[in-house]
């Protein structure tokens, strides 16, 4: 197992930075490693990452999500086991400190203990830079999901959130 932690300051308020982070499907617009994100539902995501010729698809569950504060996730694959957290803290100047921490626990992790964390750290730092450029360039978020997730389960922010408005009569 190894872990990496990277931080960046972005010059937008916490709410804008957090809201933008919830727009997972837009990540491939500004991140270079993230090629595709499908949000199957709020707490279940499918990611496609690629570095050079290496391509990795995995699904991840969002375990905790607290608006304007943090979210944590864990991969659901057996072969690329990792957990992560991204947190958002206000700075004194009205901006946001975004911190990403990733713990990787896959079979290859130990063998490559030396180089891999550094490489992953560099990738995360670069992608955080892309995030900063994107949200600062926009000046405001392109969308938001303001729900809360606890223990992998969505906690609705209102009695009948939009996504719950579906046919619910018995189906034979």
């Amino acid at each position, binding site marked *: 197992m190894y872990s990496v932690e990277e931080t960046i300051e972005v010059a937008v308020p916490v709410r804008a930075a957090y809201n933008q982070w919830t727009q997972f499907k837009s990540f491939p617009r500004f991140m270079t490693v993230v090629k595709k994100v*499908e949000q199957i539902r709020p707490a*279940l995501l499918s990611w496609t990452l690629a570095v050079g010729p290496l391509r990795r698809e995995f699904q991840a*569950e969002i375990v905790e999500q607290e608006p304007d504060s943090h979210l944590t996730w864990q991969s659901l*694959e057996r072969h690329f086991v990792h957990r992560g957290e991204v947190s958002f803290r206000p700075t004194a100047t009205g901006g946001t400190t975004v911190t990403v921490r990733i713990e990787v626990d896959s079979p290859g992790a130990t063998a490559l203990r030396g180089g891999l964390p550094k490489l992953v750290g560099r990738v995360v730092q670069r992608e955080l830079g892309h995030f900063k450029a994107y949200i600062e360039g926009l000046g405001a978020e392109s969308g938001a999901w303001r729900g809360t997730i606890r*223990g992998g389960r969505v906690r609705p922010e209102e*009695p009948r*959130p939009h*996504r719950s408005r579906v046919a619910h*009569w018995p189906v*034979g």
Partner: protein
Amino acid sequence: MKKAPGDEPNEALTVTPPKKWAAGVPAVAHALGYSLEETSVRRTGETLLTMNQVGGIDCPGCAWADPSPGNRHRNEYCENGAKHINDEATSRRIGADFFREHTVSELGRRSDKWLNQQGRLTEPMVKRPGSDSYQPISWHDAFDLLASELRSLDSPDEAVFYTSGRASNEAAFALQLFARALGTNNLPDCSNMCHESSGFALHETLGTGKGTVSLDDLHHADLIFVVGQNPGTNHPRQLSALEEAKRNGARIIAVNPLPEAGLLRFKNPQKPSGVIGKGTQIADRFLHIRNGGDLALFQGINRLLLEAEDARPGEVLARDFIESDTKGFEEFAEHVRTIGWDDILAATGLAREEIEQVRDEVLGSRRVIVCWAMGITQHKHAVPTIREIVNFLLLRGNIGRAGTGACPVRGHSNVQGDRTMGIWEQMPDDFLDALQTEFGFDPPRAHGLDSVNSIRAMREGRIKFFLALAGNFVRAAPDSAITEDAMRNCRLTAHISTKLNRSHTVCGETALILPTLGRTEVDIQADGEQFVTVENSMSEVHTSQGRLQPASPLLLSEISILCRLARRTLDGRGTDIPWEQFEADYGAIRDHISRIVPGLHDFNRRVTRPGGIQLPNAVNEGVYHNDVGKALFTANDFAMLRAPEGYLLLQTLRSHDQWNTVPYTSNDRYRGIHGSRRVVLVNPEDVAALGLSEGQHVDLVSVWGDDPERRAEGFRVVSYPTTRGCAAAYYPETNVLVPLDSVADKSNQPTSKAIVVRLEPVASPATASPR
């Protein structure tokens, strides 16, 4: 044009040991063999290579979900789907000449297999009162006949409109709209006979009528229960999902009275390891349960989980979740602790040790899914059984999280979508209000008739008019003799069909065959080529577009038939439903659906995206749309099915070479049955205890408290590893044994998985009719 078999050969029964694995190369060979018997190489290629692909044909064979667009195989179908689609794409045709040669009563003596083999219907036919033959009729005259009959009814509630799960969303929506504009909610459907119990139980406890899992959940579960379900035959593509789950480390517990081949091992024909290797072991644990013992099993597991929590407080149950999201825990827990082990073991036929091992598997798993099908739903206590499954899931918070949930596996491809479109006799007021706002008429509010109640009403002469949108109602329904009498009691019966089946031979005074396009065929209307939409078992709504030249230029689409019938019938009744526009452009129907059915907003645009629309499930959004607004624990009375001494509990089931009511051959190769479908599978110890012998000729006689004797003649006894006291035989041949009044509590679903029967030896081989 290929020629259909003229005679019904007498085949001899042979029995070989049941298979221990499913699919592999034989599945491919059987699928291709059957397809090429029915149609050409070119048409086989056209159907199979577009099947379940983006922009292609949705396989009508089952409702299993498709993988996401980028992850589908080039051959995304199974043996049974391939057979089914080419059964529809057959090159055989029947028209007026065929009906001149065969009277209705002669056709009534033919087997289901033979009727299906004759080929595609090509022109509308009518059987007039007093006649024993179908004759050609023009579409114009057929609609006149139907409309004048409907207009002559004393009340619209004298009409019944049945829907089979083959019908598209658009056709289903048009049918319910027509029925309600006419003034009735008499909308029975095939799901009344398959998953009605699931809908009732899930709605009451979780506030959803549908399953809560997606393929992604299955792929990432730690533990999957496959209960009362035979995926190898009935949903073979589920085996690919289970294989993927196992590759990710999942364990699988199969619960079934029969050790079905598909539960044991799967050789995926899409992979080299499935062609030449040993394949994948599916079930890590097989619980050989008695028919209907599943309620007791889950009560036993739940009791053990509560006791494990007693021993290790705070470590077993999802206390926070139970506190925040559920109601009724204390009452449930108090009740389930009173269920005695002697009762549980007697009802399940299992050893306590086996159930304790299941508990240990559960305790070692963070993500658990329960899949089930008709082995659960077709019992008197089906609704309590499914409620108990929900209790089990709630105890450890296995709802609303990735890799967890409830998975009722539906059989017919659009059975779920038809219900979403309002095919239900009890639709809630908000749906009816939306219809009223959209179309300006006042839909009837009184509940209509489901399938069983429709048969009762037909028997009593309260129904004069029966129209079926696809399906084979008399063979799908229980109590065949009573159902057939009920149909014959109608003034007019009509079927919108692609192929001949027994329902066409059981006629009202007047009967109509309205031949229609199949899923495989190009559908061109005034506004150009059309597609339809369907919804699978995992709530994905997507398009289906046929590619083949229609079987006859005279075929009308289901939607055309319904729109023309509605125009002719409702003309002058003051409704402003644009039936002509609906027929010309199915997109116009979807525009209206988008304003009526919650969750399908912007339907036309979203459904054409690759993969279509994934309808959310409110449970996964933390919302429970039931009466209490929370997930509900329930206390379910213990129930045990018991046949008296000398009797057996019979379940009806499909053979592997069968699709719903249509047998393709007389073989069931996974179970080792060849050459005959009139067999009853009995545990060898029961064969001995009942004084019977292998291969002996018997009649099956069902025991129920009402007058008529229900007898299925001319069966052979086959020793088979089913549980003690429990037997199995194929439907539709044994539907005659299922009493109409033997239904599940609350859901009114026939109890086809637990009929008390005796096996009466007959001295010489019976000369039963082929069917």
